[in-house]
C-alpha cells in the first residue's frame, strides 16, 4: 500500500541527524572540496532530503557553513553535551601525535576558553567519539595516515583507526567506517553518508566493511578489475610512453593490479575523468600502504612487472594476433547477402 509506505517515510523523515565534518586533521581539505562535486547524491540532495524516507541531515562543514567562529563551533560543544543525537563524526586529515610536542600543537579546532589555546583534534576525538553514532574517516589521511604519515614525517601522523583502535566500536555498534582516496572519490563519500543516514533511521542494515574497514560494495574490486585498459594487458600490449597511447600503463608505473578502488568504473565527476582509464597511472592513493610502499610512483611495480613480462612474452601476443586476424577476416566483414542485386539471397523464401 502506497499510503502505508508514505506514513513510514514520514516517520523517518522527521528524524534529524547531524554530520559533524571536521577538516582540521592534518588535511588539505581536498575531500570536502571534492565532495562538492558529487552528484550521486549531490550535497544539496542530502541537505534538501532528495531521497524518500531519508532523515533530515544537517551538515556542519567548515568549507560551506554559513555560521562563523564560536557560532559555528557550538555544534561540537553541543554534541559533547549530548544535545545532538544522533550525530556522525567525520574526520578529514590524519591525527598527529600530540604527545611529542610539549606545549605546542600539530592541529587544532576551536579554542579552549580556559587557557586560550587551540583544542587539538585528538582531544576532540576523545571527547566526541564515545558519543557518536558513527565515526567516519574520510580520505586516506584520516583512514590510514596517508601523505602526512610518510617516512621521516615530524608529526607522528596516523589514521583514525590507529588512534581509536582497529576493533573500536561506536555506541551504535559500528566500527570506524573508512572511505579512503586522495581525495576520496566524490560520490563514494556522499553515497556512504546517505547510506549511514538511512541506516540510522532504521531503513538499511549496517554497511558491510572489509578488513581495512572499507565499504565492500565500493572497494571490493581492484583498479585492474575495473579498468578499461585491462583488455590491452590481457593481450600483453603495454604503453611505452605517457600520453595518448591508450594501452595498459603497467610498465609506466600504474599500480592498478594491487589497488582496491572503483575510480576506473565510476569515473571522477559525473563519470568523466579518472586515473588509468584516462591515461594517468594509478598511484595507489586508496591503500593503507600509500604512499611509501608505492614510491617511486613512475617506476613499475615489481609484481606487476613480472606478470606483465610473462604475458608480454607468452600468450599475450598469440591472443592478440588471432583476435586481430579474426576481426580482420571475419567480424569486420558483412555477411555476403547484403548487396545490390536483382535477387534476394538472405535465405528468405520469397512468396510474391
Amino acid at each position: 500500500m502506497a499510503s502505508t509506505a508514505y506514513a513510514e517515510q514520514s516517520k523517518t523523515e522527521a528524524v534529524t541527524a547531524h554530520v559533524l565534518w571536521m577538516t582540521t586533521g592534518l588535511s588539505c581539505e581536498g575531500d570536502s572540496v571534492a565532495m562538492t562535486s558529487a552528484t550521486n547524491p549531490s550535497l544539496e540532495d542530502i541537505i534538501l532530503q532528495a531521497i524518500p524516507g531519508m532523515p533530515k541531515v544537517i551538515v556542519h562543514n567548515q568549507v560551506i557553513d554559513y555560521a562563523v567562529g564560536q557560532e559555528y563551533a557550538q555544534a561540537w560543544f553541543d554534541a559533547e553535551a549530548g544535545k545532538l543525537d544522533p550525530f556522525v563524526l567525520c574526520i578529514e586529515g590524519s591525527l598527529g601525535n600530540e604527545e611529542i610536542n610539549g606545549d605546542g600543537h600539530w592541529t587544532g579546532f576551536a579554542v579552549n576558553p580556559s587557557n586560550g589555546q587551540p583544542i587539538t583534534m585528538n582531544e576532540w576525538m576523545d571527547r566526541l567519539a564515545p558519543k557518536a553514532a558513527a565515526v567516519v574517516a574520510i580520505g586516506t589521511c584520516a583512514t590510514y595516515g596517508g601523505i602526512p604519515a610518510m617516512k621521516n614525517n615530524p608529526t607522528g601522523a596516523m589514521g583514525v583507526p590507529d588512534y581509536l583502535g582497529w576493533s573500536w566500536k561506536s555506541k551504535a555498534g559500528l566500527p570506524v567506517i573508512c572511505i579512503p582516496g586522495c581525495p576520496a572519490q566524490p560520490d563514494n563519500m556522499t553515497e556512504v553518508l546517505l547510506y549511514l543516514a538511512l541506516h540510522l533511521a532504521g531503513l538499511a542494515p549496517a554497511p558491510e566493511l572489509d578488513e581495512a574497514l572499507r565499504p565492500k560494495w565500493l572497494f571490493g574490486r581492484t583498479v585492474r578489475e575495473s579498468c578499461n585498459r585491462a583488455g590491452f594487458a590481457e593481450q600483453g600490449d603495454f604503453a611505452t610512453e605517457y600520453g595518448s597511447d591508450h594501452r595498459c600503463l603497467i610498465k609506466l608505473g600504474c599500480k592498478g593490479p594491487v589497488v582496491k578502488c572503483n575510480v576506473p568504473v565510476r569515473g571522477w565527476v559525473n563519470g568523466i575523468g579518472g586515473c588509468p582509464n584516462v591515461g594517468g597511472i594509478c598511484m595507489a592513493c586508496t591503500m593503507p600502504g600509500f604512499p611509501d610502499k608505492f614510491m617511486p610512483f613512475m617506476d613499475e611495480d615489481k609484481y606487476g612487472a613480472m606478470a606483465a613480462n610473462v604475458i608480454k612474452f607468452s600468450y599475450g601476443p598469440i591472443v592478440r594476433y588471432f583476435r586481430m586476424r579474426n576481426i580482420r577476416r571475419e567480424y569486420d566483414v558483412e555477411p555476403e547477402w547484403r548487396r545490390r542485386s536483382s535477387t534476394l539471397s538472405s535465405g528468405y523464401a520469397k512468396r510474391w
Partner: protein
Amino acid sequence: MAVTTANKVMVKEMSWDPITRIVGSLGIHTEIDFSNRQVLKCYSTSMIFRGFDIFMKGIDPRDAHFITSRICGICGDNHCTCSCLNQNMAYGVKPPKLGDLAFNLAETADYIFDHAIYNDCMANVDFCEQMVKETNPSLLAKAEQTAAPGRDIHGHKTIADIMRALNPFTGEFYLETLHVARYTREMYCLFGGRHTHPSTIMPGGCSADITHQTCTDYYVRLMRYFDYVKRSVPMHDDLYDFFLQELPGYDMVGYRETNLVNWGSFDDPDYVDYDYRHMTDWGRRRYITPGVAIGGELISTDLVEINLMIRILLGSSYFDGWQNEPTFVTHDPLGNPVDKNHPWNKVTLPRPQKRDFTDKYTWVVSPRMFDKRTGAHVCCDTGGGPFARQWCTAKAGVVDFGYAKATGHSIQMVLPRSPKLPEMELEWQVPEKSNAIERDRARTYHQAYSALIALHNLERAIKEVQAGRTKSWNSFKVPEDAVSVGFHEAARGVLSHHMVIREGKIANYQPYPPTPWNASPRDVYGTPGPYEDAVQNTPLFEENGPDNFKGIDIMRAVRSFDPCLPCGVHMYTGTGRVRKVTHTPTAMA
C-alpha cells in the same frame, strides 16, 4: 601612519575561530575599538603543520608533483602543475606543444571552477540577503528599492533580488554555481584526470588521452560557461557598486597599500623552453604577465629578478632559524648571488609551542619581497589571486591574443557568442585601491579572462589534434645534480616550488603557495602580514553593537583574499575582554 591620540577608548578583544567558508584553518584575533568603530590590532593564526619540506627530503624527484599536490585540497592541481614546470627545468625537458596546451587547458578550467565556487558559494554569502538582514538591515531595505542596472542581462530586478540569489542552498545563483562548479571540474578532468589531485599531469607533459572527443567535450562545456559568466559579471558589478555607493568609505574595508605579487601563468608553447637562463623572456610571454608591484608601481615583470627578491622571514612563527645550517645554493644558474633567506636555502625546523599573540602565534612563516632600491622587506599580497594577476597583466600591457588585450590600464575582453547569449565586450579597469570589494570584483572578471585564455588555447590544441600531432609527452632523465624552480599561479595567487637535487634525490624542496604570503604574521621587523594589515585598516559599517557583533566587515576583508589554510577564530560575543587603552590607530593614512 601612527597618529597618537590621548583619548581613552573602550576596546574589546574578539576572535573568530574557526573562519568558515574558506579552505583550511584560519584564526583571526582582533582588538576592536567600538567607540571609534575601528580595528586596532589583528593577528592571523594557523594551527596546522604537516611538514612537506621535511618528509620530501631524500625521495625521488619524480614523486614531487604527486606529493606536493596534497599540500592543498582546492588548488592541489596548481601545485602538481608547478612541480611539473619545476621538474621540466631540472630535467631539461620540453613537452610537445600539445602537452603545454593541455597544462593550460587543465589550469584554466581550474581557475574558472575555483573562482566561481569560492566567490558565489563562500565569499559572497557575506553579501547574501540573510547576512545583510542580520548585519545591515537598513541597507537591505535600500536594496529592495534599488533597481539593478544590469537586470536585462542577468535577470534580477533589484539589488535585493541579487542578494536573495546568493542565499545558501535556496538562492538561485548559489545553486547554479554549485552546478557550474561540477561541469567545470569535468573540464579539468578531461586533461588532468581528476580534481583536485591530478592523475595525468606529469613532468615531460600530459599523459591524458587527448583525442577529438577530449577537445569536443571541453568545448561544449566551455561555451556553456560563457553563458554563465556573461550574467555573472554584470550581476556582481551591480552588487559591489551598490555597496560602494550606499556606504561611503566602504572602499577602505580590507584596504592595504598596493603591494602585489604574481608569478604569471599559462606558458606559450612557442616560446617556453623551461630553461632558467631564458626565464625572463618566456615568463613575459605568459598569458598572465608576472609582476611585482610596490606602492602602486609595477617594478618588475622579470621572473629571474622576481625570483631573487624572495625572502622567507620568521618573527612570529613556530620555527627556528636556519642561519647555522648548510647553504644549498650560493648562485643561480645565471651566476647571480642567492640570499640565505631565499627558499633554495631554507631549512624547515619546527618548534611546536604554546600560542602567544605577543610572541609566536602561528605555523605560517613570513615571506617578503626584498626591494634593493630601499633595502626594505616589503609585505606583498596576491589580492586573492585574480586582483594581482589582472593588475600586473593590465599594467604590463603585453598580452594580446585576440579575445583579450592588456592596455596599460585595463584588460579588454571580447566574449564570443555562446549558446544563449550574443557576443559581449568587457573591460576590467585597474582600480585605484586594493580593497575587499575590488578583490571580489577582480575574481568575477577573472572567470571571464580565464575562460578566454582557455578558448584560445583550445583552438590551438584542436589544430594540433587535427594535424595528427597527438603526442603530448616527452621522455627525460633525472640528473645527478640540479637547481630548479617552478613559477605558477595557484587560483589564490603566487606559487613557487624551489628544488635542489643532489645524487639524484631531493636535497631540498620548498613549496610556497599564496597563503603564506597573505596569512603571514608579523615578521622579524614587526611588519604585519596582509590579512593583519588589511583588517587593521578596516572601518566598521555593521549596524550591530558589541553584544551581537558579527564582524561582517572583517570577514569580508579576510575572505576577499580567498584564504586557504587551516586556522581558527573564536568569538567572545558580548563577553570579550574589555580593556582601557590609550589608542594608536595604525595605517589609516
